[in-house]
């Protein structure tokens, strides 16, 4: 599944940078019914985590009240050049990863 990551490619050491992520997912709430009255089973992303050079810097628990195609924006301090790793985990064994690299001067 496609994920869009927005991380500045360069930053000065100590800068506070914004990380924005968007992933495509239906986020079916499990509270909706079809026209013939059947409950549509829940299918959501339940957790998101971001690691910066192996250390977890941000984590989120998501619920059905998060809109489809979950968008998350958060901040971190640019410490070292390296890699951000992103992971989404959800119902029905859903799992996606993405990564982005940054150069810190």
């Amino acid at each position: 599944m496609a994920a869009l990551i927005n991380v500045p490619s360069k930053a000065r050491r100590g800068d506070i940078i914004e990380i924005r992520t968007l992933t495509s997912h239906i986020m079916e709430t499990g509270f909706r019914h079809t026209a013939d009255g059947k409950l549509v089973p829940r299918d959501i992303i339940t957790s998101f985590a971001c690691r910066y050079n192996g250390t977890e810097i941000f984590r989120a628990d998501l619920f059905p009240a998060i809109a489809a195609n979950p968008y998350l924006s958060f901040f971190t301090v640019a410490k070292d050049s390296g890699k951000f790793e992103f992971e989404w985990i959800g119902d029905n064994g859903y799992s996606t990863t993405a990564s982005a690299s940054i150069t810190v001067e």
Partner: protein
Amino acid sequence: MPTTRRQFLSLASGVTVAGTIPIVTLRPIEATPAMLNTAIRNVVGEAQIRSGKVKLDIPPLVENGNTVPMTVSVASPMTADDHVKSIHVFNEKNPQPNIGNFYLGPSSGRAQVSTRIRLADTQKVVAIAHLSDDTFWQVAADVVVTLAACTEETN
């Protein structure tokens, strides 16, 4: 015997009643303020929740409850001694009171999280911040929703 108008009408209405399948089953599935309180207590425990420090940016009037932009920020220096551990967002009237839990740390630099949420009704949204000194701070915002999310029928 010719059918009178009265007989015909009573027969016709009988057919209509029998022919009507109860398709519309609008269940009032929504969280109640009591469920909101329970959800908050599950996170906070017995601790006192104070007002302030937290800012919740959400439009006061939304046309489409399916995607409502929301930003929570907390006034915090985000140092090792004084930072925001987590931010929890709740609602009053969706089928479930939780919206999201966000875990931060001193390396976040700034205590601010944005996402897009669903709102099933005109209601109150509550954001609670858990600080490193184990105090809890909250803010609430009222949102008017004209098109509800979460429970509508699929096509």
